[in-house]
């Protein structure tokens, strides 16, 4: 697979403050790549550098093997949905789309606009000013605008921010549809962990300008390739004793106990060995199973570790 986004040793400073710090990653064609991080982590700055809106202080960023800051034509293969939708409130939905269709040099713009209005279900209100639309409708129209010219890559900045659950679901379905049916590469800036887990194939977790985790969602929720094993104890009060026994055994990591449930990553021990250790130590076991962690747990763990590294 060819990398359509390449970022190497990327750094960006504003007035001596390092906002993006030595970031390296790549995104392959057809991927839905999630770029996660809290507010101020440097997500939007990275995206702006990729889009050629900001110049990097160090390193480089290439999209479709081009620097979008200088390559006007390459920007024609990229779609963008910023937080503000990029729409003109006094123009109608159709006028907005036709304007961008003409800017991108689309042949027969009216046909393409009608197609997109139907795709987003906005054809009935196509002649009304966008200023009268709900937040969800504007978002839909913003997505239609971003994919108007059938770009190879689409950048989304917090696409479901401020939307109600129904509209969030609709936007997620649209993005998944673009990736699966149209084969578009999607770069998704978000701090909505549930959304990222549902639609992204790979994620980078950013903290204070640095990438703290970079892997497929599948690997991350499985504990970086290691199995996460959860044992439910017969006596919920025996958690501390169980952690002591397992910690001294070796072959396990990330052992923690909460409400009678002990979770751990299996490094070299097998599940039956874990149960034997506990039973031989006089601790009863009700249930034991492999379990995937949620992206939220991974994210919070990465954030805690990153905060620890910083302090």
């Amino acid at each position, binding site marked *: 697979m060819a990398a359509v986004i390449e970022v190497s040793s990327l750094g960006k400073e504003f007035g001596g403050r390092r906002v993006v710090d030595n970031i390296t990653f790549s995104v392959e064609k057809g991927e839905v790549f999630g770029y996660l991080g809290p507010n101020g982590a440097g997500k939007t700055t990275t995206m702006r550098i990729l889009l050629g809106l900001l110049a990097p202080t160090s390193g480089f960023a290439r999209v479709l093997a081009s620097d979008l800051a200088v390559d006007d034509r390459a*920007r024609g293969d990229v779609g963008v949905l910023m937080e*503000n939708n990029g729409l003109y*409130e*006094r123009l109608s939905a159709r006028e907005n789309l036709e304007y961008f269709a003409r*800017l991108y040099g689309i042949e027969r713009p009216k046909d393409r606009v009608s197609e997109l209005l139907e795709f987003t279900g906005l054809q009935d209100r196509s002649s009304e000013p966008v200023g009268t639309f709900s937040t969800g409708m504007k978002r839909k129209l913003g997505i239609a605008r971003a994919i108007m010219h059938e770009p190879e890559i689409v950048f989304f900045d917090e696409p479901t921010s401020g939307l109600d659950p129904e509209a969030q679901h609709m936007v997620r379905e649209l993005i998944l549809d673009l990736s699966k049916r149209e084969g578009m590469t999607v770069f998704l800036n978000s701090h909505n962990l549930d959304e990222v887990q549902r639609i992204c194939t790979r994620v980078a977790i950013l903290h204070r300008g640095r990438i703290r985790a970079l892997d497929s969602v599948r690997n991350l929720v499985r504990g970086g390739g290691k199995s996460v094993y959860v044992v439910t104890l017969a006596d919920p009060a025996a958690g501390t004793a169980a952690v002591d026994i397992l910690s001294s055994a070796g072959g396990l990591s990330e052992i923690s106990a909460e409400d009678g449930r002990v979770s751990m990553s299996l490094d070299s021990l097998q599940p039956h060995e874990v149960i034997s250790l506990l039973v031989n130590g006089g601790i009863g076991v009700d249930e034991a199973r492999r379990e995937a962690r949620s992206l939220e747990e991974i994210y919070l763990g990465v954030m805690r570790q990153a905060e620890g590294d910083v302090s």
Partner: protein
Amino acid sequence: MRGVLVVAEKEIWQLLRSKNVLVSAVLFIVIFGGMTGPAMLAGSDADPVQVMDQLLFYLVLVLGVFSAYLFTGQVFLREKQEGVVETLLCTPLSLREIWLGKVVGIVVPATVLSYLASVIIVLVGSAVLGTTVWPSPPVILHILVVVPAFIGAGAGLIGFAQLLLGMRENQVLNFAIIFGLIFLISFTQAILGPSFSVTWGVVAAVLALAAVIIMGTAWLTRVLSRERIVTTLPD
């Protein structure tokens, strides 16, 4: 060039939808063109044709530039305030094409308004004097060619500054422009003096000045960068 025309057409279309701004511009032109000009004509002992020429020479130009200033607020500043310009910067258009398209989109309606101001001044002035007073040929050329060129120069320079500066600096700029234009309307005739007459040479000189401003601003757009615009967007 296609991109420039697409942007220009959209700006004109959007300005026509901006009722508040359009009404403000038309009112300004009707009030100053219909009242200030004829008042000066009525209060002057000089040759009416010469006074009319003077009025049309500077008042139409100032009113046209003022209309352009009003429109730059909609075309450049509002787009920046709302953050839509960031999306526009991601299209295949160059920064100069975007800037030029917007300037053309301002020049067309502002020129129409300046022509309207000329007609008002001539009609009301003639009514005040009791006889039809036609402007001289150099003044007609000035209105048809130099005024649009100056509108372009003004719109280009103000739009460039609005893209370059942050929101607070833009507020200061707005005050400076408003006071500058009011000063021009109030004192230009006094500065020119009663003996000033509009000749072909004067018209050529003013046209050259407009061309210099346009070329200078086009050159200045090289210092304008996507980063400068994005980093001066409001939070």
